[in-house]
């Protein structure tokens, strides 16, 4: 297993480099001059010229890229054009926020999605199955921003049960932090739960018709044991990969949900950065999320080995 993982890590390095080149080039293709945004309403030509020089915007693109990657390899991701804050500091501020949101959303997704998937597979063709499917379809179809605003208006404004929006660090006030994050993670979690439910259902259905399940039933095992111990364990393997990938996506930020609930995470950071043509920030965030995504992929591969004894020999 180790040589396999090592190989995967080595392959990841060129992937990350390619991503960084791609994103850099894409940003330069964007119309709009970062300095016009940066110069403010007055656009003093002298200041513009100075800033163009300072941020090396007169250099050819490949030189700009080399300068960036050179610094990045030394751990310096540059400074934000907009706030003058170092990009590493911005990322360090937002990473815990994004991870907390991702973990809480994933908990919602797993707790709702997997039992619902099992239930609808076992009760295939019954009313329970149709209801579960209908709910899953709704979860996928209801736009996050709409659900978010409705929840805020009902739960926070009308019933005054939870804070309307914002973010409180876990270290500052544990309960307030959790309660503030409940609604946004529910919104994100329900959408993911739908995906998980659909996959669990189909995976369970294929496993339930396998020979060894019939054998287990023929042995006279209780149905509960057959489903939870024999069928589910095999059905879960693809779900683990899916969960890891979905988690990777969550780390990349949930733009709309973060915007509605005013959560200062990656999604909001990168969207604001793109609008302001804040190149260094976009570049830094993409790099970090790409690394995160690749790491989650590796983790999924590693979990495969753990869950599936047949693979361990290879």
């Amino acid at each position, binding site marked *: 297993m180790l040589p396999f993982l090592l190989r995967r890590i080595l392959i990841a390095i060129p992937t990350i480099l390619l991503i960084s080149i791609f994103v850099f080039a894409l940003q330069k293709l964007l119309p709009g001059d970062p300095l016009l945004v940066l110069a403010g309403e007055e656009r003093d*030509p002298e200041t513009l010229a100075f800033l163009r020089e300072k941020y090396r915007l007169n250099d050819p693109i490949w030189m700009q890229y080399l300068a960036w990657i050179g610094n990045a390899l030394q751990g310096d991701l540059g400074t934000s054009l907009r706030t003058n804050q170092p990009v590493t500091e911005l990322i360090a501020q937002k990473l815990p926020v994004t991870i907390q949101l991702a973990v809480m959303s994933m908990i919602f997704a797993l707790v709702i999605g997997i039992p619902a998937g099992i239930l609808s597979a076992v009760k295939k063709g019954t009313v329970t199955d149709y209801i579960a499917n209908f709910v899953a379809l709704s979860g996928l179809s209801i736009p996050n921003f709409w659900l978010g605003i409705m929840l805020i208006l009902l739960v926070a404004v009308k019933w005054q049960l939870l804070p309307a*929006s914002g973010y409180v660090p876990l270290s500052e006030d544990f309960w307030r932090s959790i309660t503030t994050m409940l609604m946004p993670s529910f919104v994100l979690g329900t959408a993911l739960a739908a995906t998980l439910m659909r996959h669990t259902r189909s995976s369970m259905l294929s496993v339930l018709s396998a020979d060894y399940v019939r054998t287990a039933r023929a042995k006279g095992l209780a149905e509960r044991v057959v489903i939870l111990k024999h069928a589910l364990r095999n059905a879960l393997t693809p779900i683990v990969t899916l969960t890891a990938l979905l988690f990777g996506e969550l780390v990349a930020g949930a733009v709309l949900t973060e915007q509605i609930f005013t959560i200062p995470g990656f999604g909001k950071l990168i969207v604001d950065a793109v609008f302001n043509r804040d190149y260094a920030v976009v570049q830094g965030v993409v790099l970090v999320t790409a690394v995160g995504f690749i790491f989650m992929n590796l983790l999924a591969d590693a979990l495969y080995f753990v869950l599936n004894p047949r693979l361990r020999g290879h």
Partner: protein
Amino acid sequence: MLHLKTAMITALLSATALSASPVFAKDLRIALQSDADVLDPDQSRTFVGRIVYASLCDKLVDITPDLEIIPQLATSWTTSEDGTAITMQLREGVVFHDGTPFNSQAVADNIERSQTMDESRRKSELASITSTEVTGEYVIVMNLAGPDATLMAQLADRAGMMVSPTAAAAAGTDFGLNPVCSGAFSFTERVAQDKIVLTKFDDYWNADAINFDSVTFLPIPDTTVRLANLQSGDIDMLERLAATDLTQARGDDSIVVDSAVSLGYQGITFNLANGEKGDNPWGNDKRLRQALSFAIDREALNQVVFDGAFAPGNQSFPSSSPWYNTSLPVEPANIERAQELLAEAGYPDGIDLEVQVPNSTEPLAVMQVVQAMAAPAGINISLTSKEFATLLSDQSAGDYFASQIGWSGRVDPDGNNHQFATTDGGINDSKFSDPKMDELLNAARIAGTTAERKALYDEATAIMLDELPRLFLYHVNWIWAYNDSLKGFTPYPDGMIRLEGVTWEE
């Protein structure tokens, strides 16, 4: 028994004392529409940044709601006979947040920083100051290249904000990460896109007027969510309530709504001679632009898009401004006149116009209404919606025919006109050029009295409304909504939130 009685009275007395003391220890939470940029008055550019400065950084002078210049750090000032020198008397006993004393040398250092720092965005605002002289601990003389009627208004904004010279010298261009000024509150913490926290400065010269222990500014971009936060009590105040949310906010008894007409404007800028695209019928013939202006019912536009909450406008100043040319009021739509003008210009069967518009809700709604109003006159408007940074660079490069854009406005009338309408103006994206206009706007910069300036701007406005390089549509109203426990807030046309005298009474 007696002891018990005494104890009870004591307890009662202390309880009364507690409830009678002003409700301190209150952290005021204010929601902003977006996150501020760098917190250095010399480098910053955003409107919300200025709202933070109103609590963080004092200025040499301030304005009244009626746009008169009043003392802040400067207590009085006189202009020399020939208008080339301003002598300022400064407030004594003021210190910066780091303990550095405020005096005339500090003012000189600040002006030098604004004028010479490479990253400074304030250079053009202070361009008329050629040198400063420290003539006493609290007296400073500013020597000017020539009379400058606009300077005092500049000193009432970012150019007049005083930062600690010690901190500025130590931090250089990184000053914005930990700003040190002399305002009512000092900088505590900032988490980008999350919050900016300021704490009451105990040595503030006007500390008695400040009734909050701290202020937290929270950027909440979604207007509905901003209001929801106010209704749920998570914030105490918000700026820029959406006009369409007014009814809901007014229906809530625990919320107070205040507003003031802004100093800026929204309108359509035409390309007259900016690059090849300037050579088009709309850029070449003012009668077409006049026709469009006649086709628009500005009052209806305001009603339809903003529920009547804003101010219809046809000049660079709102009609509430002392600089408004009252002989040229907002006219109702006149489709017949618009059609006549089109025919005179040689387009009796109508003409097309492509307008670029920022891709956000309000500008799009405004232009869709304008589109509908122009159609009966025979003007077929097509809208190209662009993300703002792109729109701005296309406009600056001359890659447009007409552009829906606004201006946040300045206290002095010069700020709404000179850079847009003079031949060499820095933001003259129309490339409009008219010798008479240059003469009028330049003269208004140096004219001695307000009456003289008013006459010059009246004349300039008349030319603008005839030529229409910028077609004005409406003026935004700043709308604040706040918890009804908040007392003593005064709306200002510059949209700032001034906390002097504001209290919290449960």
